[in-house]
């Protein structure tokens, strides 16, 4: 027979042991789960707002992407003309035209316009790329009508007052002048200058000296020709539906008259296929900046998605091959990344790195090796999956801020990228596999990239001699001399 009293004692002892064991197990298991990263939950579905579109009676395309929780609205007017539409003898005309919008109408001075916009906390900005001009207006939802009224006035009734031309040109001059202190800007501009040589895109690459050549009549001509509703689109992101947006935009923009514009798609510039190394002296630079790249396809190409996956493997982040090799393994660079810019007619794949002067040539060779066929052929399925994971994860992050979201919608509409780049983005990335990546790489990574180096010539001259041939340019892109087999002429 079991003594009940003893049993109680045993039970207590047993329970106590159990408690101690449980506690120990709990602590042990906690320590254990800290040892390695947790397994992620299943990927959540991405539900992007639909991009709804309509064409108004004057030909203006309207696109609305609804974000109902937002108290702010982002408005974008995209004119389908950019710097490559400036006349070859008038580079900068597109930028100056955009910057003169908001500088006066027949009834309002620049100061009054600024005052009207600020009177309701509005924010207005213009930006010009190779193919398009974008005007952005951010505003509180409650002030939409006030915003549209002044927005339509400054665009449709722009008077381009002569007095404001000097101010705008002076500002543009100093902005460019200031940017030329940045070695990356100087290097990238020179790269594009060399890649787009002889192509209409070359007009887009200019320095501050040419701004003085653009006169009021040139700007008026550019505006009259390209600023037409049938050559523009209006994007609204925020708490707005298509029918309300159509009504409001029609109301404010219905006096804008259409005109036939013949603007055919430019052919892509050919990729560079000869060895070219360029150097620009920037005396204040402490390190050497390398920018190298070549022409690839536009974003409408079926190679786009395999390419962005491959780019991610090569140089998208600090964990990518270029960074790991040039910085972490070799110690040559403070950074090394790759990327691409996409335009209407083509794209440009590039690599940028900041290296110490002594290892310029070694760094260029390492970069060429990393993006060369032999290295690309060694890309593994694991790397492809990691790159896809990054791109899928990063997509909603990129598009979360309202203005970025609105700009992405504008980009998709302006370049006719369609659903592939929006609601089918995840699927397109998921479908990329090793074979597709290798096929894309084979097609586009063979030609030789143009190499541009920017640095202080006094510090880097000896190391430039390690190259067979280096062409020396001034900051405006004029070739000054050549270092051939170590001898400068």
């Amino acid at each position, binding site marked *: 027979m079991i003594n009940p009293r003893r049993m109680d004692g045993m039970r207590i002892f047993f329970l106590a042991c159990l408690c101690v064991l449980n506690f120990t197990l709990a602590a042990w298991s*906690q320590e254990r789960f800290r040892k390695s*990263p947790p397994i992620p939950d299943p990927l*959540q579905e991405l539900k992007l707002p639909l991009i709804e579109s309509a064409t108004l009676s004057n030909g203006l395309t309207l696109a609305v992407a609804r974000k109902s929780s937002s108290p702010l609205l982002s408005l974008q007017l995209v004119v389908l003309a950019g710097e490559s539409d400036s006349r070859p003898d008038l580079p900068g005309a597109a930028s100056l035209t955009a910057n003169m919008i908001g500088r006066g109408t027949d009834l309002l001075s620049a100061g009054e316009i600024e005052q009207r916009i600020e009177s309701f906390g509005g924010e207005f900005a213009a930006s010009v790329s190779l193919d398009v001009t974008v005007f952005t207006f951010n505003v509180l939802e409650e002030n939409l009508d006030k915003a549209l009224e002044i927005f339509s006035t400054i665009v449709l009734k722009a008077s381009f007052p002569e007095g404001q031309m000097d101010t705008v040109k002076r500002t543009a001059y100093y902005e460019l002048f200031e940017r030329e202190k940045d070695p990356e800007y100087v290097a990238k501009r020179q790269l594009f200058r060399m890649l787009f040589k002889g192509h209409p895109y070359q007009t887009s690459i200019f320095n501050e000296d040419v701004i003085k050549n653009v006169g009021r009549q040139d700007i008026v001509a550019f505006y009259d020709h390209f600023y037409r509703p049938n050559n523009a689109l209006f994007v609204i992101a925020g708490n707005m539906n298509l029918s309300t947006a159509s009504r409001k935009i029609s109301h404010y923009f219905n006096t804008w008259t259409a005109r036939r514009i013949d603007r055919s798609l430019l052919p892509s510039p050919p990729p560079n296929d000869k060895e070219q190394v360029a150097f620009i002296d920037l005396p204040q630079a402490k390190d050497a900046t390398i920018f190298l790249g070549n022409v690839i396809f536009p974003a409408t190409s079926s190679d786009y998605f395999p390419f962005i996956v491959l780019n991610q493997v090569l140089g998208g982040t600090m*964990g990518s091959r270029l960074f790991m090799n040039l910085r972490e393994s070799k110690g040559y660079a403070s950074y090394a990344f790759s990327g691409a810019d996409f335009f209407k007619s083509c794209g440009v794949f590039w690599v940028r790195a900041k290296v110490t002067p002594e290892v310029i040539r070694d760094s260029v060779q390492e970069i060429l090796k990393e993006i060369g066929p032999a290295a690309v052929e060694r890309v593994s399925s694991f790397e492809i999956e990691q790159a896809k994971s*990054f791109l899928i994860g*990063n997509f909603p992050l990129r598009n979360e801020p309202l203005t970025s979201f609105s700009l992405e919608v504008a980009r998709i509409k302006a370049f006719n990228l369609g659903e592939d780049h929006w609601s089918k983005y995840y699927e397109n990335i998921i479908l990329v596999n090793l074979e597709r990546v290798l096929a894309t790489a084979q097609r586009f990574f063979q030609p030789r990239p143009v190499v541009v180096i920017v640095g202080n010539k006094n510090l880097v001259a000896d190391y430039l001699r390690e190259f067979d041939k280096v062409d020396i340019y001034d900051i405006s892109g004029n070739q000054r001399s050549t270092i051939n087999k170590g001898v400068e002429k």
Partner: protein
Amino acid sequence: MSLKKSAAWLVLAVLFCPQAGLNAQEQAPPKGLDFPLTQYTLKNGLHVILSEDESLPLVSVVVAYGVGPIREQPGKSGLAYLMETLMFQGSENISPMQHINYIQRIGGEFNANTAFDKSFFYQTVPSNQLALVLWLESDRMGSLSVTGVNVERAKETVMAEQRQRRSAEPYLDSYFLFDEILFPDFVYGHPLLGSEEDLRNITEEDVRSFYRTYYVPNNAVLCITGSLNVPRTKELIARYFETIPRGNDVPDLPASKPVEGSPIRDTELKESLAPSPAFHFGYRINHLQRGETYGLRILDILMFRGKGSRLYKRLVKKERIALYLSGGIEERRELRAFKVFTISNNPVMSDLCRKAIASEMGKLKTTLVSDAELAKAKDFFKMDYLGRLSTSLLRALFLSDASLSGNRLEDLAAEYAKYLKVTPVTIVSLANKLFTPENAFTLNLVTK
């Protein structure tokens, strides 16, 4: 939690706060402030804030600690900023820089920021990776690797940054000097970056002790916003954070000593290395009443926000005496300063700036702001305030900052309404109270 339910919850919360309740009845929470909010505190003192937003499949995680330069001792300046670097140098289960790699590999973004009295560590990731971030953050909260090698490496990084910033920003040292003038108490006035000499003197033991004292759950806020499931998130938080031991009670801050006047109000920095003459102007603001902060924020906007703001319009556009203008209200806990900085072409212009600023400050005291100007300032305020809540990360930073500052998050809507109730009389009264000659200080930079 649905949006509807959460809005009701916020309104209920403010009804329990008598002062705020009135405002809530008058005005429903505006769009942008009607988000759900869940708050609780773990046994170890870690305060948790959760706010759902299902619009995109991502989450932002902020771990904010109540520590910054304010906690540094003389001779050890730069310690809080050094800690920001060290927090990426690895912990018991995560090797150096692995934190960054884990976040980048999944397409996430990360950063850290040290403010005067707070330090923020944050990341935004796909929502299915929430556990990963909690694992990373809990590991560095519980077991940061403080080794001689790590500390020396971090010191070198921070000193290199100091040198780089000093050579790139020729006016930086003058900013630091002016801060010391406006906030003469070391605790409030020394620079975030610290001095190179102090950094060299910081030992491994200093770092360890600083970490043990301030980077503890009872001195931190964990804020998660975005696409999250509250019960599941609570489970994960319990798993990763509950067993981190509570730290000792965080020492009280020394009470700030109001500095009434000073024998030297105007300082001149001769032979400055700055390329152009520059001028700092500021008022010390000691111990503002709580209700006065609303008016001060609107006044800040009137003076500085936009090209039509009073100082920009006068100094840059109309009189063209300043090449560059910046300024605003700076808060260092209960102490504040109103600061203006200008760069001019020559000393004459610089002197004209001084006079023009004084004249504008005088106008604030004597003339009522027009209704139109006030409405404009309030619209800017709305844009800025709602903009600070417009992404999951911005919202998480805003909420954790407000929480560490001791603000009741349930009262956000009521607080917002108070800014919109500022009147022209509020501005004039504040200007007369705060902008007195005995609180005014200048620092003039004369170039070589």
